[in-house]
């Protein structure tokens, strides 16, 4: 485990063509890290996330992705992810290979990945058309009962990137609030990169808290408000107004490109990104 700045960490660990999971179920979405990957112009990534959310809408729209593994691809409570739609419907800015699951299927795949098992098993996908369009959804016969159960291959990303509230100086990482499949995605990965709100002397975790011990963490960058416009419980709220605004920004290719230029590509780092939005709101 080592601490570094986000630019160096992305430069050091993210390569074109990698399989990357950036988890956080609505909460703690690692926007700062995604924006840095966009700035550094990474391409041909296979992106994994249960809910692609605005973070992957941006990465897909800007051309970082060749493939997407996901289970629900909307703007939560608002509607469409228009950049994802444009990629699937019109191959813009390029074709996007999709591997589609249900949430339960993705959760089983991460859990298997974390346990280094070859596949996850569930009573799932029954009576749906999903196995017909995703050849990775298969089945197995239970050796004890004879029941047919659905299987999904383990997800083992090259890199998982998370945002968390807290790290201590040793690099132990603590996650509070809605934790999604972050722990599973973290332990399933070969490399684990984390951005945190702050570093403290003592992690102060309750006995059963979600803590990722320093020796499973590859690198940490301190990025205050690194999950914005999603949120970090105890630090700042989800910017629901921005999620509503994104509907207009992402709907049109040019509007999207201008927004990304102004707020991501022309900014040096996440602090500048936040500053541009703050100026706009003022």
């Amino acid at each position, binding site marked *: 485990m080592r601490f570094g700045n986000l630019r160096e960490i992305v430069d050091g660990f993210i390569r074109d063509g990698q399989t990357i999971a950036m988890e956080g179920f609505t909460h703690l979405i690692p926007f700062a890290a995604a924006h840095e990957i966009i700035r550094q112009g990474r391409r041909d990534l296979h992106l994994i996330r249960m809910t692609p959310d605005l973070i992957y809408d941006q990465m897909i729209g800007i051309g970082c992705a060749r493939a997407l593994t996901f*289970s629900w*691809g909307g703007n*939560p409570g608002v509607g469409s992810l228009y950049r994802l739609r444009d990629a699937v419907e019109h191959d813009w800015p390029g074709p996007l290979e999709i591997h589609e699951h249900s949430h339960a299927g993705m959760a089983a795949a991460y859990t298997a990945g974390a346990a280094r098992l070859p596949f996850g098993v569930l009573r799932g996908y029954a*009576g*749906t058309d999903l196995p017909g369009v995703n050849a990775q959804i298969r089945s197995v016969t239970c050796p004890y009962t004879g029941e047919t159960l659905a299987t999904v291959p383990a997800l083992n990303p090259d890199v998982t990137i998370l945002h968390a509230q807290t790290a201590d100086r040793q690099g132990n990482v603590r996650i509070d609030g*809605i934790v*999604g499949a972050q722990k599973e995605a973290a332990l399933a990965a070969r490399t684990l990169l984390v951005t945190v709100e702050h570093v403290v002397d003592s992690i102060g975790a309750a006995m059963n808290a979600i803590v990722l011990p320093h020796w499973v963490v590859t690198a940490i960058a301190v990025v205050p408000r690194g999950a914005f416009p999603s949120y970090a419980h105890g630090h700042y709220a989800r*910017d629901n107004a921005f999620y509503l605004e994104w509907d207009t920004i992402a709907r049109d290719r040019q509007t999207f490109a201008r927004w990304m230029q102004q707020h991501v590509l022309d900014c040096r780092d996440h602090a500048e990104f936040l500053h541009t939005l703050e100026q706009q709101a003022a």
Partner: protein
Amino acid sequence: MSYTPDEMMTIAAARLLWPGCVCFVGIGVPSAAANLARLTRAPDIVLIYESGTIGTKPDVLPLSIGDGELAETATVVVPLPEIFSYWLQAGRIDVGFLGAAQIDRHGNLNTTVIGDYAHPKTRMPGAGGAPEIACHARQTFIVLKQSPRSFVKRLDFRSSAGFLGGGGERAALGVGGAGPQIVITDLGVLKPDAQTRELTLVARYQNVGVEQIVAATGWPLAVAANVEIVAPPTAEELVVLRDLNERTRLAHAQTRRATIAGVA
């Protein structure tokens, strides 16, 4: 008090839930209805959102399924793989409350694509938690607006199983839940026939004619011999729903300046 068809739909859906019921809630009308039930007739209802929040009591409706409000007011917040395995798959959910873009006559749902899967005319968000909710909740209630575009003869994609082709086909799947037991729309109420499992119109709202509902359905709709009339909203139901919606609107419109205050 006058009311809109959307308000009637939400209120009719809320009336389905009972005190103590354990309900797995989707975003949108299901979430509004479940919270309306909690604020009126069923204060001890247990609401579960797939983000892992169990027993949540939000003061405003969440915009996303993982808003902080849900976690702060929950009895417990569990990891997401757990919510789908230990809670849903294990059969601990009384009611799965689902919406959809398309439904067919046997209560199967599409939330995935309009058109061909590989080259869709419209790519929708996808299935999310619904395929397993549809299988493992003891029963599901479905709520969506009724029109020939949403009530279709043939789904473009089956995202979640209802009664499949009808009759005993669902039972043959060997899944735990009984499937869709009621469909609430902005025009009336449909229930599956006990044998064929075909959705049948059993009730309509005041001022909505049976012909209007038949015309809003993309297949020849089965109509019960005796179509009941749903009681209109009470003043209490309307006041509580409107207060909830207004609190929610104000909360979601909070400006970014407020949200990122303290950054500079």
